[in-house]
């Protein structure tokens, strides 16, 4: 019988700590599948953030480190300078990257650091229990905005992909979502291109992955996927913002 599906060697055979319905598991797998297919698992060094995915190193079968809150792009820059031959990536959430680490991500892009960032945006702080993030949508409830985010108080949600796409060094910028099988396939393609950009050392590559947080959204997993499609995608439009010719 022909084997049509195999678990990626990029993921270690352990259960994750993620909540039921959380899309971190899908995002992890897509990144690891891409690295496996490109033959890069043994050549990669990953940087985990502060947030739910700090423990991603328990699941991803590549050399990895933790980093202080928001500092993953600086850590990855250091690794990149030390190891010019390796594949380097950060995997960060929206509290880590868009809030406390906004400076580090902008300057990593600005220097055109030749690593890849996977930015998992679920519009809320997950690990600390549902506080408002820079990416929380208007009207979206959080534990630090129980009546829903208000523009007058907290400003409009930050569109990180669009912001980074204005920076020359960020040569590949795409936003994808994990709410449908079709979108998941597109997400994998984008992640694959981001690593292709890095393999060719063309500059900084960035994929924003719209994700769910059923626990802190107060929705079940299926409702969460629908909520993502209905509320997040209109404000955070999917698609490629920058891509070099070399990977097209």
């Amino acid at each position, binding site marked *: 019988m022909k084997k049509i599906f195999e678990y990626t060697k990029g993921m270690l055979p352990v259960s994750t700590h993620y909540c039921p319905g959380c899309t971190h598991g899908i995002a992890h797998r897509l990144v690891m599948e891409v690295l496996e297919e490109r033959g890069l698992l043994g*050549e990669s060094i990953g940087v985990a953030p502060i947030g739910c995915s700090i423990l991603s190193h328990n699941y991803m079968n590549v050399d990895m480190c*933790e980093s202080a809150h928001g500092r993953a792009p600086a850590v990855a820059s250091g690794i990149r*300078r030390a190891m010019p031959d390796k594949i380097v990536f950060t995997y960060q959430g929206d509290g880590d990257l868009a809030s406390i680490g906004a400076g580090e991500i902008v300057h990593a892009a600005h220097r055109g650091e030749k690593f890849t960032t996977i930015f998992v945006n679920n519009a809320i702080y997950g690990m600390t229990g549902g506080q408002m993030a820079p990416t929380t949508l208007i009207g979206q409830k959080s534990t630090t905005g129980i009546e829903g985010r208000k523009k007058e108080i907290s400003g409009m949600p930050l569109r990180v992909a669009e912001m980074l796409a204005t920076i020359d060094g960020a040569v590949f910028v795409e936003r994808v979502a994990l709410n449908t099988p079709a979108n998941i396939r597109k997400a994998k393609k984008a992640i694959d291109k981001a690593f292709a950009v890095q393999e060719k050392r063309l500059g900084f590559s960035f994929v924003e992955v719209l994700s769910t947080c059923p626990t802190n959204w107060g929705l079940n997993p299926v409702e969460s996927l629908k909520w993502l499609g209905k509320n997040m995608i209109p404000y955070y439009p999917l698609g490629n913002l920058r891509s070099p010719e070399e990977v097209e």
Partner: protein
Amino acid sequence: MKEKKLMKGNEAFAEAAIRGGCSLYFGYPITPQNEIPEYMSRELHKVGGTFAQAESELAAINMAYGGALTGKHVFISSSSPGIALMQEGMSFLASAEVPLVIMNVSRGGPGVGGIQPGQGDYRQVTKGGGNGDYHVPVFAPASIQESVDIIYEAVPIADEYRNPVMVLVDGMLGQMMEPVVLPPIRRQITSEEIAQKKPWALTGHKGERTHNVVKSLRLKPDELEKHNIHLEDKYKKMKRELIRYQTDRLQGATVVFVAFGTMSRIINEAVDHLEKAGIKAGIIRPISLWPFPDQAFDEIDPCTKVIISAELSLGQMMEDIKSAVAGRFPVELIYRVGGMVPTPMEVADKTKKILEVIA
């Protein structure tokens, strides 16, 4: 014969790090240490190393963490307010057990303070400005030659203990020129040596070993406690092995000064002035500020009337002196702060006044 060169402090420090085998430098501009990143940007690539200017001190130390966790030798530098920003990183590196050499060319504080020499960093560097139970060994040389030698030696020390090590000088040493004999060039660590000596380093597992993880988070209290005790065992070892100090003229001294760095050089002259005035004075010069050389105080002659902490800060080191003296002698303070530096005569006059009160 070894060649003696006249060098500016900051440039000599950078050269010492390069000769010590450091191949990576990350920094952010701040006075009075700017000649270090400038020198590194010119020179490091010539030995196959990499210089990168960070967007902040926060980023600089985290870049250094990234570089050092691959097993390579990394050097960074900053000055007092920048060191404050790096404290998060120092705590993290100590927790993750990643070696690093940090140069602090300190200035007056608090806050932005000024850009003239100061020793007001004593507390932030010896007591650990970051969170949690950790220590960073701090060496405080008093000349450019001694700085060069200590930076060179700090590279293997950081490796041995898998911990950051700091070399603390004040802006005076960074900005002045002195003759210096540079150490021989130590070969940079090879990937084979990293694989052998640093099996924890992140180098890509190549499918040949299980994946390595460099981490700080330990969610289970029993696991974190175990890690804390493991770190504490290292700190106890450092206390046994890394204490450095010099003493001079303690025998029969009426007054014993305790001073480090630039201040110790002023005290050396003040001691001469006092001797001419018939007052016998000795000096304890701590070179390691953490671990603090408590045992040096056991060498003090019982005839001594007073111990004086001479600082470019407001009694920060005096706390450690009092703890080491443990009530055996009175401890007084002579200081200038804000970037002001006393003359030897000024110190001698103040000492005489202190002795008048005590006698």
